[in-house]
């Protein structure tokens, strides 16, 4: 006899509301029904009504954890349509901003994963060390997460030489702590009992479902846009792409913690090798006709923006595909066959950012046309 356990939309395991209807027999899961759309805010419609500069600020606020990734993707697309290029020093500063964000996001994920399995001590310790990175972002660019340091054509503020020693000090302290945490996570018996061989995603499944980011890299899929389609300064900074073989929750946690160490190395190299020069190229505000796709390795995987411009100050259409949207279908094969106790940790292991995810598209089967449904239209449809 199947019994349905609702996870969400309001549930302590999820930070943002989504609905997973899990059918169980006893404690074993037999089916998962995923319903998204609770955080739909009509952002794509709003972006087509704002100029590119204002749209940049809105695009940053799609997500509360990865604003730099959204900026960089939007800028990659806009700068391609507008035909302008970012100067060298700005590219390096953008890289440093992106890597600092990757560190803070992975530490946030590690804390949430520890909280889901009941290990509150590790949760508090991870977030304590995350403050080292957030203090750096505040010192360099004025705000902890939505620091808006990138702008069309470059960056807004420079990294001054008297700020560099504090950056290096915090990064050294963080590196020591993260190495210790990798040791703890890999060896603690209770963590291994809860995370090893749980929520396994095989390499073939990851390829078939087009998983992206650390979720795919933990299953052995060796794909990273920073190396394979480089942007900012990634073609000049050497780094390794971290993969694991097992594809279980433990592999996903370890991939992200090791990526933190790689990011620290990238930042140190970028600070050393940063060239001088101007910080921005001028952007007049008008853009010629054209279309462009920008993609970036965000904290959670491949983030994609498509911009279609008919000339002028505002884009005609902006389409956003976030990494969590690509990773959600992998939740079903990971959950089926497991027990209810694993649901929070398996859901958390894809590092879901539902705020990024909800863009509803309605496909009309008769005519084959698809359009984006705005909030006003959804309300009308619901009456």
């Amino acid at each position, binding site marked *: 006899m199947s019994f349905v356990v609702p996870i969400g939309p309001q549930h302590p395991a999820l930070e943002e509301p989504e609905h997973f209807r899990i059918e169980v027999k006893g404690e074993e899961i037999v089916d998962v029904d995923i319903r998204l759309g609770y955080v739909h805010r009509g952002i794509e419609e709003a972006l087509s009504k*704002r100029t590119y*500069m*204002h749209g*940049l*600020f*809105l695009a940053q*606020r799609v997500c509360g954890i990865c604003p730099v990734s959204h900026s960089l993707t939007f800028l990659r697309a806009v700068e391609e349509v507008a035909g302008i290029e970012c100067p060298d020093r700005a590219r390096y500063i953008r890289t440093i901003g992106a890597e600092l964000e990757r560190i803070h996001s992975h530490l946030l994920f590690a804390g949430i994963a520890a909280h889901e399995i009941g290990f509150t*001590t*590790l949760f508090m*310790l991870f977030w*304590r060390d995350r*403050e080292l990175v957030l203090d750096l972002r*505040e*010192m*360099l*660019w*004025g*705000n902890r997460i*939505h620091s*808006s340091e990138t702008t069309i054509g470059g960056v*807004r*503020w420079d990294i001054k030489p008297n700020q560099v020693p504090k950056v290096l000090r915090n990064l050294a302290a963080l590196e020591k702590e993260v190495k*210790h945490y990798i*040791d*703890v996570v890999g*060896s*603690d*018996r209770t963590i291994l009992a809860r995370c090893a061989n749980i929520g396994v995603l095989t390499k073939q499944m990851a390829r078939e479902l087009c998983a992206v980011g650390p979720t795919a890299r933990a299953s052995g899929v060796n794909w990273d846009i920073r190396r394979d389609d480089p942007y900012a300064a990634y073609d000049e900074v050497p780094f390794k792409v971290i993969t694991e073989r097992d594809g279980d929750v433990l592999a996903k946690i370890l991939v992200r913690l090791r990526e933190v160490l790689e990011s620290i190395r990238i930042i140190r190299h970028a600070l050393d090798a940063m060239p001088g020069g101007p910080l921005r190229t001028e952007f007049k505000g008008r853009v010629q006709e054209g279309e462009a796709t920008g993609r970036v390795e965000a904290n959670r995987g491949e983030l994609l923006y498509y911009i279609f411009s008919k000339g002028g100050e505002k884009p005609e259409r902006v389409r956003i595909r976030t990494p969590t949207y690509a990773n959600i279908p992998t939740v079903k094969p990971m959950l089926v066959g497991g027990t209810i106790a694993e649901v929070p940790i398996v859901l958390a292991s894809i590092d879901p950012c539902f705020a990024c995810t909800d863009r509803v598209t309605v496909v009309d089967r008769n005519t084959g046309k698809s359009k984006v449904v705005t909030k006003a239209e959804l309300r009308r449809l619901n009456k």
Partner: protein
Amino acid sequence: MPRIQLDVLKNLLRKPSTVKYPHFKAELPERFRGKPINDRERCISCGLCAKVCPDRAITYDEEKKPRFYLGLCIYCGRCAEVCPVKSITMTKEFELATYNKYEAVSK
């Protein structure tokens, strides 16, 4: 012996890493962007700040000087960046909670 045990015992002897806000406050860096204020003597009423504000949070009052509506402001700092006479500064004030958001205005 789990490796986290030593961490936990060491933490008992250290000073906590949290600060008892609001009795003690942490130090803010110089680039911190808090409430924007305008030096009315210096302002030349050019209108650029209202034009570049991403959220249209700046309007003009009777003397044609900018009025910042703090409920819409995203504290991005573009108004201060674009001002030709540098009369707008982003202060370090962040405790801006109020009972009536329509009165949360900075001049």
